[in-house]
């Protein structure tokens, strides 16, 4: 198990007070806080070896390049890529990684009538890029519904994935509900000759992820949701796919030989890294991976399951609370979406903020899912390795306060599919 007390000392921001109360940061699915080790890595880079990479024959440029490329090896180890550093492309974030695939793969390989299979619970980042490319190429989007408990069922996937499917793109874990059967989806996709993209934004930071075992063709995730700075994300892809795809962005670094009318591309993965990347961000991502691996992803997962289970138990004790998605922590990452009576989530969040408790209140960039759940928005508490049961209690008490403030009727609401 994690020594949470020691871990909390690594995160300077957790010493902060908000409205005179200790900060209780429960918005980790949006972005996580950064440990001293990551902040120090940034400071060290900028104050000791800041230089542009892959050019310049001087010591600083070499040190920066070595550090940047070294992170590629760390990512390979972290997600257990069987294909080495060639399979790792640095992007800005999950959104950019998925846009890269939709454009660079889709533009080259999608034909009119081809189908892309998505779930209705996808984050907009795994929906809009496919809408755009499908419109351009005359391809069709097919959506797999969730069941009334908020689960994505394998038989629903089975019904949607067929001979016309060219791509299946699913979140490994929903940013609102629970964990999806992506390994089964990948097997179904491959049986029909389609590719599998996993949006790992909500899974990679929270549990051991092994791309070989998942057997996915693409995995997208963001550094900033796993203790790294904003600005650095990852696309994992099989190198032969990357080699066959067109470039995404053009510019410096991604070229081999440039002539006025046409050019050839750098080797994979550099073909997909045009222009100066967020070097410091990538180096920070390396420090974050070291930090997480030092604690152990299994241990982080176990801790979050415990906290999430406790949060579900506490929130369920308020009759007016509706929790969305499966009720056991095993089927979730550390995300608990809920509504409290008929108080609008913004109002809930505003009262909680007054108690130092930071949660998210919105449609969570998943408007189609909100319509499916028949609510405009939800409140969402999301946990990470530094959260404690006492913080869940703080959430609970602040929520009771919100209930008093808005005079919530403590009558059970009709269960809304959860």
């Amino acid at each position, binding site marked *: 198990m994690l020594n949470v007390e020691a871990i909390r000392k690594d995160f300077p921001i957790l010493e902060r007070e908000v409205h005179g109360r200790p900060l209780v940061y429960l918005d980790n699915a949006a972005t996580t806080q950064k440990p001293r080790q990551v902040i120090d890595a940034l400071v060290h880079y900028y104050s000791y070896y800041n230089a542009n990479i892959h050019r310049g024959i001087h010591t600083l440029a070499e040190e920066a390049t070595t550090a940047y490329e070294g992170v590629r090896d760390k990512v390979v180890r972290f997600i257990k890529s069987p294909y080495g550093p060639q399979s790792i492309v640095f992007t800005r974030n999950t959104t950019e990684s998925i846009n890269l695939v939709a454009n660079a793969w889709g533009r080259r390989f999608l034909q009119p009538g081809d189908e892309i299979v998505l779930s209705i619970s996808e984050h907009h980042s795994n929906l809009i890029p496919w809408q755009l490319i499908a419109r351009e190429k005359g391809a069709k989007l097919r959506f797999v519904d969730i069941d009334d408990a908020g689960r994505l069922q394998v038989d629903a996937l089975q019904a949607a994935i067929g001979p016309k499917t060219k791509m299946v793109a699913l979140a490994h874990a929903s940013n609102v509900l629970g964990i999806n059967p992506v390994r089964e989806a990948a097997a179904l996709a491959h049986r029909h000759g389609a590719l599998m993209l996993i949006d790992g934004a909500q899974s990679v930071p929270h549990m051991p992820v092994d791309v070989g075992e998942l057997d996915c063709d693409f995995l997208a995730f963001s550094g900033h949701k796993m203790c790294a700075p904003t600005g650095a994300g990852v696309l994992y892809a099989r190198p032969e796919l990357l080699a066959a795809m067109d470039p995404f962005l053009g510019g410096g670094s991604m070229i081999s030989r440039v002539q006025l009318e046409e050019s050839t591309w750098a080797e994979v993965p550099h073909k997909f890294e045009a222009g100066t990347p967020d070097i410091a961000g990538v180096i920070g991502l390396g420090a974050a991976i070291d930090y997480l691996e030092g604690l152990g992803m299994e241990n982080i997962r176990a801790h979050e399951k415990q906290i999430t289970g406790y949060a579900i138990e506490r929130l369920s004790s308020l009759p007016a609370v509706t929790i969305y998605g499966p009720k056991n922590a095993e089927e979730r990452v550390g995300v608990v979406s809920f509504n409290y009576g008929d108080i609008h*989530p913004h109002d809930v969040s*505003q009262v909680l903020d007054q108690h130092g408790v930071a949660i998210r209140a919105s449609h969570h960039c998943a408007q189609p899912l909100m319509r499916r759940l028949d609510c405009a*928005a939800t409140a969402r508490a999301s946990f990470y390795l530094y959260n404690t049961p006492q913080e869940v209690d703080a959430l609970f008490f602040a929520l009771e306060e919100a209930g008093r403030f808005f005079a919530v009727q403590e009558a059970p609401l009709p269960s809304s599919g959860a």
Partner: protein
Amino acid sequence: MNFPEPQLDDLYRDLILDHYRHPRNRGNLEHPSAKVDGYNPLCGDEVELELLFDDEGVIQDVAFKGRGCSISQASTSMMTDLIKGRSKADAQHFIEAFKHMMTDPQDEPPAELGDLEALQGVAKFPVRVKCATLAWNVLEQGLRENGAAHIEEA
């Protein structure tokens, strides 16, 4: 860091909570002259406003529907109370006065806004200002419309 601490009571005044719990002029009109709906994609607040003008341009009747946070719904409810029976020109003047109150909270709230002064505290919570102004943007569109229109907050 020392920010002045806005208090919850500044935002959620009793009058606001009362309008939220018991919205005035909620529903539909039989024969509206104008029907406008507004949506804030950031938070999902929705306001649908129906207006009935007479030949002189006086707002004879008004009704709204919507869903969203207490601020957005209370602001709409209080607005409908204020504009009923007033001319389009008066309504336009109220819109400007209300927006001024949201952007310049240090100024005295304009007296003609009456009870709406209760929403002045919203200006201390910048992320909530859009909740309060949605209805007013919808009204502004409605004053220009004869028919149906739709607006989305940027």
